[in-house]
């Protein structure tokens, strides 16, 4: 049985989380296999919410499957598809199933996904969602109505930040609002430049929040260049691109694992932040290898 995520955060250990992306459809064999590999290697397992606005199995039942398998799920909740009524209903439903860890996100826009004509909701944003959760913990819903009965939920609530957003000032202003709204843990967008990340952490350290650096496994130099050109807030420095490009033929993935492992080890040894969130994007079976490369297996 996995330890509760908030206990892992409070224990002061170097926390590791990874993520599972549910499939489109009902063939869950591969997903169950990923859950099996990951559930005991990490302190928390995120389940993405229609990631990139591509319709997939919803997060709550997948969190339940992780829980039944003995893992510790983290429910990712975006504001793209559900209004405030549906969001709160989902949170209460998660809580009664024992799912208490929630990562609050605004969500990608509808047109970047595969249902471009769907109606975008965005009734709330990540900040207001965190506030809504705070309210539920006090027995009040977003409209101020009191709960029936005495029971009150407690959630372990998190948010995200992009440490290399450009410009950075509006991002930091929003980061502070997320903390004000009750964020207890932060998973960052993927970082590659540890010097820049250290500078961000100097600023972020003054807030009472646990910060986990986002690690995205590089599989090729082409992937790094693609992300630099197309993904906001991700900057893979030239020396890492060169290192990936210089890998032996057929060994690019192994190089990516080595780089990820090295970064995680540095973050841990130099106590730069409180943990890491590993996004293996399709290569979930390599997460144990990454942890081994980091000396964390």
């Amino acid at each position, binding site marked *: 049985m996995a330890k509760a995520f908030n206990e892992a955060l409070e224990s002061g250990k170097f926390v590791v989380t990874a993520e599972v992306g549910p499939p489109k459809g009902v063939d869950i064999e591969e997903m169950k296999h990923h859950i099996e590999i990951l559930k005991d290697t990490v302190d928390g397992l995120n389940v993405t919410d229609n990631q990139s606005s591509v319709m997939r199995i919803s997060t709550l039942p997948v969190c339940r499957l992780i829980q039944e398998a003995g893992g510790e799920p983290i429910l990712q909740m975006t504001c793209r598809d559900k209004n405030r009524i549906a969001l709160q209903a989902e949170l209460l439903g998660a809580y009664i199933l024992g799912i208490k860890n929630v990562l609050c996100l605004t969500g990608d826009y509808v047109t970047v996904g595969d249902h471009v004509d769907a109606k975008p909701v965005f009734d709330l944003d990540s900040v*207001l969602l965190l506030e809504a959760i705070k309210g539920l913990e006090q027995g009040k819903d977003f409209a101020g109505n009191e709960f029936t009965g005495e029971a009150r939920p407690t959630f372990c609530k998190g948010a995200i930040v992009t440490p290399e957003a450009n410009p950075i000032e509006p991002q930091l202003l929003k980061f502070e609002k997320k903390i*004000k709204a009750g964020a207890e843990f932060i998973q960052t967008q993927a970082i590659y430049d540890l010097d820049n990340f250290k500078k961000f952490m100097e600023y972020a350290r003054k807030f009472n929040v646990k910060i986990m650096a986002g690690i995205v496994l590089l599989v090729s130099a082409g992937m790094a260049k693609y992300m630099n050109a197309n993904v906001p807030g991700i900057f893979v420095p030239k020396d890492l691109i060169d290192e990936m490009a210089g890998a032996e033929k057929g060994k690019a993935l192994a190089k990516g694992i080595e780089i990820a492992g090295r970064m995680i080890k540095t973050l841990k040894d130099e106590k730069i932040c409180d943990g890491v969130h590993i996004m293996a994007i399709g290569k979930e079976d390599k997460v144990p290898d990454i942890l081994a490369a980091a000396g964390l297996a």
Partner: protein
Amino acid sequence: MIVAERKPFEEIKAMIEGCKKVLVVGCGECVSVCMAGGEKEVQILASQLRLAFEEEGKELEAGETTLERQCDKEYLEEIKDKIDDYDAVISMACGAGVQFLAEMYDSKYVYPALNTQFIGVAEREGEWSERCRACSDCVLAETGGICPIAVCAKGLLNGPCGGTNDGKCELSKEKDCAWTLIYNRLNKLGKLDNIREIFPAKKYSVQTTPGRRIHEAFKEKE
């Protein structure tokens, strides 16, 4: 002003399939300014329909007229004698004008020639951009005169989102990130504190559908 654009020609032509006499009615206000449904556009559409029908060996008589505006009964009444001569009407007004014309002349089918798009401004000749969503709860005082509902793709009140990139929106390098614009404007005005506090959620109950407003002076006394 209201900004609209003409529907694809094929779509309009298909609407009046089987008609022999149509009246094309333009509007002299917003849609004239944004070059979608004014007098010139009425002439163009009527000519195109005549040419297209004739090229297919069919007859079409297309009458042309442009009203001051179609959202006022006073002007719509001007066509009451003319309209009986026609099988159908094509209105080149915005959605509101089309409906008002259809309501007044409900024994004639009224077709819309335009797709009404947004409330916006003229950036330069031939180019208009959206600025207002008519949300009935204007927050421009807090955001330094930049609307997050109309300009932010996601309509966020606590932005920016994680997709913002170099001041541009996640959707396209051509779209500005509203919240970067708001940040910069408030910074310039020394009013960043406006957005340091958490902006409360939007109140959608004030946006009734359909909306209705009665001026105080015209309200009936109890």
